[in-house]
């Protein structure tokens, strides 16, 4: 890296959040803004193998939960790209999953700006950022050996996972299609695949599973 300052890219659908972040980051001597994007495609279009920021701050709620999609896309295309999830959602819900999808850290938006800056810096330094409580929880799980690697859930593709999540929080197919900007048919295909993979016999069972799974999430 030839740059003396780290370049930060912002992906958030809310302009005011971007404005706040931008001003905060630009105020830092060691950080500068690489670019901003409001949605997944825009963000992907901004990047090329020879034109990458040092870190991308990604909001999960880009039209639904497309933040996940972006995470996975970028992770696939630019495995070295460092990503930090900055979200309104509770870390207990999503932090671990975003890490699995390739993020290097998770910060809740209600955390003070200091925390965000610290997280950026931690990741730029090559580490992973998580809140203390999340970190403790994770370690605890590892120590107690309770991992989810064997779960059939892990056989789901990221899109299917996203759909399952949306079903779990009570969204209908139409809503999911609108949120993910896909056709209902696609969503229905996802639903069918999820059912097959998880061995659920019908839609009702799928809904029951999804809600239960959401409720059981640590």
């Amino acid at each position: 890296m030839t740059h003396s300052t780290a370049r930060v890219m912002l992906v958030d659908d809310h302009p005011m959040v971007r404005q706040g972040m931008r001003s905060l980051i630009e105020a830092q001597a060691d950080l500068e803004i690489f670019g901003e994007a409001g949605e997944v495609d825009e963000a992907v279009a901004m990047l090329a193998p020879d034109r990458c920021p040092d870190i991308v701050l990604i909001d999960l709620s880009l039209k639904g939960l497309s933040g996940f999609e972006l995470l996975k896309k970028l992770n696939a295309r630019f495995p070295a790209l460092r990503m930090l999830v900055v979200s309104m959602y509770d870390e207990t819900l999503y932090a671990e999953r975003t890490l699995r999808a390739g993020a290097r850290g998770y910060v809740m938006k209600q955390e003070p700006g200091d925390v965000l800056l610290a997280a950026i810096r931690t990741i730029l330094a090559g580490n992973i950022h998580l809140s203390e409580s999340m970190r403790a929880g994770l370690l605890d799980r590892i120590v107690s050996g309770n991992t989810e690697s064997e779960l059939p859930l892990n056989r789901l593709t990221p899109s299917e996972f996203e759909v399952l999540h949306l079903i779990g929080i009570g969204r209908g197919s139409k809503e999911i299609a609108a949120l993910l900007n896909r056709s209902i048919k696609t969503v229905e295909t996802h639903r069918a695949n999820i059912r097959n993979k998880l061995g659920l016999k019908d839609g009702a069972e799928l809904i029951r599973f999804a809600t239960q799974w959401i409720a059981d999430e640590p």
Partner: protein
Amino acid sequence: MNLNTQSTLRIALPVAVVYFAGAHIGHLFSLVNSSVSMVWPAAGIALAAVLRYGNAAAWGVLIGVFTEEFMIAGLPLLVASSIALSATAAAMLGAWGMQARSRFQIDMQRIHDAKALLYWGVLGASVFSAVTGIAALSVAGIVPWQNFWKASGFWIMGDSLGILLLTPLLLQLTGRNWRLDWSPAYTAWILAVAAICLLVFADIGEPLLGTEISPLLLFPLIVLGAQLFTLNAVHIGLLLIVVGAFGSYLAGIGHYAHLYGQVSIQPWLMVSSLAVCGLTVSAGNAQRISAERLASSRKLHAWLADSERPLPDMLDALCREVTDQLPHAACAIAVLEPESQALRATAYSGDIAFGDAYSRVLTRNDSPERWYAAATPGPEELPLDPVLHAAMHAAGYSGVHCIPIENGAETLGIVCAFIPGRLDAAGKRAVEHAAHQGAMLILRKRDEHALRQRQAERDAERALLRSLIDANPDLIFVKDSAGRYQLCNRTFEEYADQAEAELLGKTDLEVFGEAAGTPYREQEQRMLRANGILRNEEWITYPGGRRALLDTLKAPLHDAHGNIQGVVGICRDITQHRELEKELVSVTENRQRSVGQDLHDNLGQRLVGVAYLAKTLEQQLLARDDNLAKSAAIIVEHTQTTIVECKRLAQGLVPVEIESNGLMAALRTLAARTASTFGIVCEFDCQGEVLINDMAISLNLYRIAQEAANNAVRHGKAKHIVIMLVVHAGGIRLSVRDDGTGLPDHASADHAGMGIRIMHYRASLMGGTLQFLAPAEGGTEIVVALVAGASLPEAERRRNMDRRQG
């Protein structure tokens, strides 16, 4: 002297006197130079007395015979006593034979009665009396033994003729119909009998007709009299003949003059045969008349059974019957109207002149009193109403005989017979008969009318009830205690897909099949045993496949004495109602969700932006060592607090907590948020680990707790709230207790505001119950209880979930 003896004497003494007189009359018919009498009326008197008055009269007979034989005939005491005993025994034997053996009826209206009299009285009694009497005389040496049979024969002749002539006559005279009806026909007949007697027995016609006139002429006269008149009327004629015949024989004038001084049975034979002839023919005639009566009363019964026939028609027929029996008479019946108490001309029969006069008279609506005045003086009197009388006179009628038609003390109307001359007994009976039958007809018709009226009223009531029931959109049915349908309305017919007529008498098992019907049956049986009201909600399927949710109420049906008669059921279709409730909840839910979403996705984001900007400002001011940095730091802090608030608010509206961490966590958050938002104490108390896997139940419980806590703070001004969640083997129990002012009285489901109604609805959605309690220490406690396994049916839950998705 005791009472019995007194009453016995009261009968016995007159009988003795009459017997004594009869014996003396008998002596008038004694043969010349002999004590043998051809007619012994005393025997007839004795038999009639015993028949009419029983054994008391036998004492009279005994005294009478003894007095006669001992004191008048001067027989020795022993002989007189023996004869008295034998005569009395003969009368008792005859009476016993007629009554006990032949079932003799004292009014002698049957040919059978005439036969009984002939066999037991005329033959039996006289033979017994003669044989025992002559035996006594022979033993005493008064009658030589060689004359025994001859003397007995004469005795028999005298006694038998006495009985034959007098017993029927006396029985009639001592009975009710003792009066003779001196109708013109009867007078003519008596005159004819007397004339022939005079011609035959008194030689009055001899200068003109010689001795050619035979007593045989009397036979057709007697037969004719027996056909036309009553038995006693005939007997009067017979007595004339007896006097004539024996007068001729004993006095030696007229027809039997040639027998004078000889012993001959010719007069006896003629008189006896005439008497037997008259007796049998008149008894036979009486039997025929009563048979006709019977037939006519059968006809009346036929009329009564024929309720279609109007009363005037029937009364007309009754009038015709009277005029059939009374030639040249006219008959009219007027009926008293119950309402106006006025007589109305109803029916008449007779010639046209009578009809005109009658209707002129009766159209004046005479008061019953006036008609009674006309009716009461008696059959022999002429009518008192001058107008009526004048009218009748003009029409050629000279008399009217009216008899009220009565039912006990109540007067129903009047029957009048208008006759050219006097009314005889038969005519009177005909009118009385018509009055009696008229009473039956009128009463019957009145009953029928009342019945029809009641029926009409009942029909009208039923029709009203029917249309009320049928107009009701609820399913309504009534079953008897055996579960058979007794009534159902149109809506129910639609559901059962059968007409009411087909349904009635069937059970649920027959109507809906065994599988569907058995639960109904068992449920109703349980309810009847408990004698309580049953209310539940159930899904049914209409024949077309439409499904409906019913709010069913079943109650025992009691009779007037409070005994259980069956079940009455009313089922209200609440499908639409329930849909609307759901819609309402779902609209509210959606609204909350969208507000929550907006708080989270927009307002929250803006605040995040503001927080970052403020942070930037703070850092920049800090770098310049500006004191304002502190103020900026405060802005940052406040903004961050606001973000958290905003998130909480959004979560309250969209309880992500439930979806992620379950009901327990969500309720704990709810308690914390309530406490911090309103600055009160709000605790969450949960015993043990409560895991509820059913998302719908969790959400509903959460919403109820949320609403209850809100109400407690907003309406109850509560300062301390405890939310408690308990899961036990029997189910789930959520309670929210507060120390507020308590709920107003109208917090029941029926009158409550929307919030409380939705709470109830949510509880019912889970198959649970919601109760508002008022703890003794004050405040309010809201308790939701779910019974394990009694949650929503699967289909219902699915629908619910689908709704949430859509």
